[in-house]
């Protein structure tokens, strides 16, 4: 199975029905993508496939063949959203943070609060009450 992962071609030898989440974590060694529920409710496993938000726990790896997959590791360590999450204490326990940041990337520049709320509706956070996450996204944009 071939796809582009964080800008690099990868070729993995796995069952086509393997969850993208497991392939990323176990075959590719990228553990920044987290499993929270395994049923597409919490968004901790969010990655971008061709720039769109998907829950990698719901996606068989066969579906990403030939696509571009971006995980949190693909942002490097200096992305403005990462900085902003740090500065605004947008991460508490941090387990939802990679998924939050990847979703936030797709919100475009200067999203309104209503757009941020709607955009993040599929990413659960149990620590923050979301306010600090809004502050981080607004600071970065």
């Amino acid at each position, binding site marked *: 199975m071939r796809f582009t992962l964080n800008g690099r071609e990868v070729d993995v030898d796995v069952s086509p029905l393997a969850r993208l989440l497991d392939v990323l*974590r176990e075959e590719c060694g*990228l*553990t*920044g*993508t*987290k*499993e*929270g*529920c*395994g*049923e597409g*409710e*919490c968004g*901790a496993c969010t990655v971008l496939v061709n720039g769109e938000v998907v829950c990698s726990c719901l996606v068989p790896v066969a579906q990403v063949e030939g696509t571009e997959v971006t*995980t*949190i*590791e693909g*942002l*490097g*360590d200096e992305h403005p*959203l*990462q*900085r902003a*999450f*740090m*500065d*605004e*204490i*947008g*991460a*508490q*326990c*941090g*387990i*939802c*943070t*990679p998924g939050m*940041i990847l979703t936030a990337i797709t919100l475009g520049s200067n999203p309104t609060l209503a757009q*941020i*709320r*709607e955009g*993040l*509706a*599929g*990413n*659960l*956070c*149990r*620590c*923050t*009450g*979301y*306010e*600090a996450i809004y502050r981080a996204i607004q600071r970065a944009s």
Partner: protein
Amino acid sequence: MRNVVGQSVPRKDGIDKATGHARYADDLRFPGMLFGRTVRSTIPSGRLAGVRLGFDPTGFTVVDYRDIPGQNFIALIVDDQPCLVEHDIRHVAEPVLLLAHENRDALLGALVTLDEEPSDPIFDPELSPTAFKTILIEKGDLAAGFAGADHIVEGTYRTGHQEHVYIEPQGVIAVPEGDRMTVYGSIQCPFYAHKALATVLGDAVSSVRVIQTETGGGFGGKEEYPSGIAAHAALLALKARRPVKLVYDRVEDMVATTKRHPAIVRHRTGLTSEGRLVAMDIEIVLDGGAYTTLSPVVLSRGAIHAAGPYRCDNVRIAARAMFTNTPPNGAFRGFGAPQTQFGVEVHMERVAEQLGLDPVALRERNLLRPGDTTATGQLVGEDCSALEVLRTAVRRSGFRRKRRAYAGTTRGIGLAMYWHGSGFTGSGELKLASRATIELTATGVRVLTSSTEIGQGTRTMHAQIVADALGIPYEQVEIAAADTGVVPDSGPTVASRTCMVVGRILQRAAEEIRAKLGESTPAEYFLRHGPLRVTKQYEQPEWIRWDEINYRGDAYAAYAWGCDVVEVELDPDTWEVRPLRVTVVNEIGKAIHPALARGQTEGGTAQGLGYALLERVAMRNGAMANAQLTNYIIPTTMDTPKLDVVLLEHPYAGGPFGAKGLGELSIDGPAPAVVNAIRNLQLDVRSIPALPETIREAACASP
């Protein structure tokens, strides 16, 4: 040197979390590692007659109670909870058999049949014949109080289970190293797990070590429960002689692990015609589930907070935690106090109504003031802020104006007062005798405690306290991992004690080091004189007196105070109530890190809104029937309204830089404030979660 206490400095762990580098339990792999699985009972009550393996055991490690080299219980308060079932089954999802295999598909595919002989279960805590703990708090003369009352108001209030839903499910990895056992895991209290492991493993190992991995939320759910998971993984690892990873999926996590205790709270209250409280008679029943676990201490905190932040000369609080055939209920942020404060605050709203008093005026008349005494007879200090938080919240939220404006509309507004004692109850801190260490390094200092970082900001806040107490830059303070092989036992990371209690011990240790350093920096001193370590132990403030038998005296060293105002909107077609805005005023002594403190307060408030309106655990035949995030609903961004948080500071002299505990405080207020806002819509709801069904029932019952 610029002070960092009171500044929102960068989190010590912020960048690792924002970049995905932070390593949680499931992110770790060890050579030769197996995956573990727990086979669980399927009946709420009965006997285990046999276990049949329907698979070829080659390549599997199989463990049952006969493989336990030490004692078969999870060490906590009472030794009644087996590590693995022998014969008696007391609840659904009780661990019976453990399996490990290197291939996860083979592991999950292995068929095990349990021969279970059911007996009649007990699900109603009020009908249960067995109490884990009873508590009686008595103050003044209750009969005389009622005799002098012009009004008597009665009411019964109920709260349901609540699931923690830390986004990272439970997980540990046990690694055998020679005759030693090391467990890595998502663990709030490494020394609890350490004690449980030592008990279960007995002489089979020479030593046990527990190392906390980055932890994706806890909220109490990773306080006591991981001790059992650690023991299970270690038993498998011991037998396999290989590392074993035991990580729950969400369904197992929700079915098997602890929840907030459901509660029934009954109030009978006497008042004078002016609305002064003269008698409070309170009965509390907690559903403890099938084993003792932490129920006695949850009950204790619940009982002590049950009369709310009010002064009343004649009080009786009779509380009991009861056995039922459901998975044990356990620690959850607030620890009994949210349940009992729901009762008293929803009741106070009914009291105001019956007496024809304004809800703010009734509370103003009765709130504790410095010099008053609580139900246990504790004299409240100068830092008592009950009146101030009420007045601030009322003013800031426009409570009176909106209450008038919303009359007759689909909008309602309600408020709730609350308080929360910091640290262990009574003489608990004295018994814990927590220790904390600071040592010099070549670049500054290292802080060694068993306090865990579970998102709340332990590392950052401790580093700030130490930096300012030593007069060195924040960046020069390093925080050691919570590793029982390295750090002293600073007590568990619970009870809003990590800042106020452990932070204070660190402050004292830092002050001692500072005196030794003279004019040198820590690094200079280290290079010149070599290592220097200072360990300090908790010292109880000399004024604290506590009578454990009669529940009299100083229950907590300090209290934090809160008032929430919640505005809601009712959809008259669906009976759904949505929160529109929450004003939270919390008085916390001192915000060591204002952004972290605000984050804790916002998060606790959101969790409280879920408790109030969304989070229903549907129990069917003793098991959670909706054990998925698809149908156990926690607040999303769309369910969480604007949270307007105000933090006030009235320092507590015994806390570091005046800090009190704040982590739990904010969970106490939202539920009663929401239900009081619903009452403002003329709907008589007395239980949570206030789902549309609950609200519709109330509407049909209302005159």
